């Protein structure tokens, strides 16, 4: 049952029609990587890669996560197909957790394709990119953390997508740049510390610093960020599972 829940959801998430826009964006990252070499020819390949990764790939991770995670429950409620799932002899928590795991896998795959294509664009071949392993690890943890957060948001709020997008592009862009230590409250800052990239943007234009979240020095270490993201994920998924088991999910407009 668990395997079926996971793989059937993954199959749906990786449907070509659903995957295509993300693949196009991954190629856009690759094209930007190639272009960056001409825009900033004095920067090292690692710096060029880092700039595009933080501007595009890691930002898209949050967007992808918002799109895929809201599909787990919110989309089923909006499409009114949730009724078929909730009247089956499957514990609700299991339904939620395995569909969430499938969405995390899909988001990671999309992010990984972006990182690999960007590496190919900047380095010529992904195998030449020493930063890629750390990035894949960071992308996986990011998919888990964003997914867990957006899952809870999608269960607790109507119009969850708007909230998720505000978080992804508002909170996650502004908080890492704020003074003090508030950047601890940003998943993006933790991903930066796990990815351990050079920070070329700190000496670059302000706009670039802002977009890549590097206006302030990030004092977080991978050792700190890793447990924080893991604990955050486990706690949020546990709360979501409890929430989904105890609250009603019925398309409201159908209520008589």
């Amino acid at each position, binding site marked *: 049952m668990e395997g079926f829940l996971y793989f059937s959801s993954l199959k749906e998430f990786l449907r070509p029609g659903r995957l295509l826009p993300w693949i196009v964006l991954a190629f856009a990252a690759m094209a930007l990587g190639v272009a960056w070499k001409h825009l900033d020819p004095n920067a090292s390949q690692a710096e060029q890669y880092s700039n595009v990764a933080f501007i595009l790939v890691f930002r898209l991770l949050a967007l992808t996560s918002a799109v895929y995670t809201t599909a787990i429950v919110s989309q089923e409620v909006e499409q009114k197909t949730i*009724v078929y799932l909730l009247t089956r002899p499957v514990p609700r928590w299991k339904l939620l957790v395995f569909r969430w795991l499938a969405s995390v896998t899909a988001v990671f795959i999309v992010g990984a394709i972006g990182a690999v294509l960007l590496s190919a664009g900047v380095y010529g071949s992904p195998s030449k990119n020493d930063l890629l392993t750390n990035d894949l690890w960071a992308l996986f943890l990011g998919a888990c953390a964003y997914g867990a957060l957006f899952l809870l948001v999608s269960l607790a709020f109507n119009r969850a997508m708007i909230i998720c997008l505000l978080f992804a592009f508002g909170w996650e862009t502004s908080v890492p740049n704020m003074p003090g230590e508030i950047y601890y409250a940003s998943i993006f800052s933790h991903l930066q510390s796990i990815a351990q990239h050079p920070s070329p943007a700190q000496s670059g234009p302000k706009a670039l610093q802002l977009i890549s979240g590097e206006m302030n020095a990030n004092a977080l270490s991978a050792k700190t960020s890793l447990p924080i993201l893991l604990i955050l994920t486990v706690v949020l998924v546990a709360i979501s599972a409890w929430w989904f088991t105890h609250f009603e999910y019925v398309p409201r407009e159908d209520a008589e």
Partner: protein
Amino acid sequence: MITLTNASRWYGQVIGLNDVTCEIQPGLTALLGMNGAGKSTMLRLITGQIRPTTGSVLIQGQEPFANPEVYKHLGYCPEIDNFYENMTGRQFVQYLARLAGFSATQAKALTIEMLQRVGMADRADKRIKGYSKGMRQRIKLAQAMIHSPEIILLDEPLNGLDPVGRREYIDLLHDLALEGKTIVVSSHILYEVESMTKSILLLHRGRLLATGDLRVIRGLIDKYPHRVRVETDDPRRAAQLLSPLPNVVSLRFDPTGDAIELEVRDPDAFYQALGNFVLDENLPVSAFSSPDNNLESVFQYLVHS
């Protein structure tokens, strides 16, 4: 088998179901009520999609809300016409069979069996988005029966079915009832329910108005005057012939000049007499109808009595 005890359900300020107490036994039971009567709310309570605000709902002694044990014994065919549109009918039923806990092989075999039973075997490999309303209803029934549940709840299942399909569907429900299953069918169409079962639960504005044999309720209603409208080119002659009948209580000419409206007791006897006048006296009747012969009048009778 299904027990509701003082079950009420509020949606904010709006009441969906109001203090309903009843037991539903094996066999075919119709849940009858107009749109907004609370039929879907009651089915959602029974299927554990929502919780009662007060009171209790029990299925074989267990609370159904988010209870997988209950869902092993329960099949639900919702009113909504929403599916995973990109799936074929076969994929949809098979997917839900897998979610019911069957292995891939079992799910495949059961899907074939169920699709044959609902008459969809030959169209099962088309995408659902290309299905007619009737085909969608059949696929919904197939998914509800796939795990052979003892209780099957169907919310307005006859919507969109053609007369032949309707007959086949009702026959299938009778077969399931004969197998000892508890079948609950909601409907807002009186004649539909009359052709299906005698056992009804009558809901009106969230309240359970009556339970039992529909024919008994009908008999009670027939004791009170029914309105009958007779359309004719010669209303004066019609009035002359019909007014002396002992079961005619009152008669009124329609302002349009081509119909009369009567109040009659014992409508069956009146219709018999009307037929005789048409045949024996050549009374020109183009149409007749009874505004009381519908669900609204049943409710009005029950509410006012």
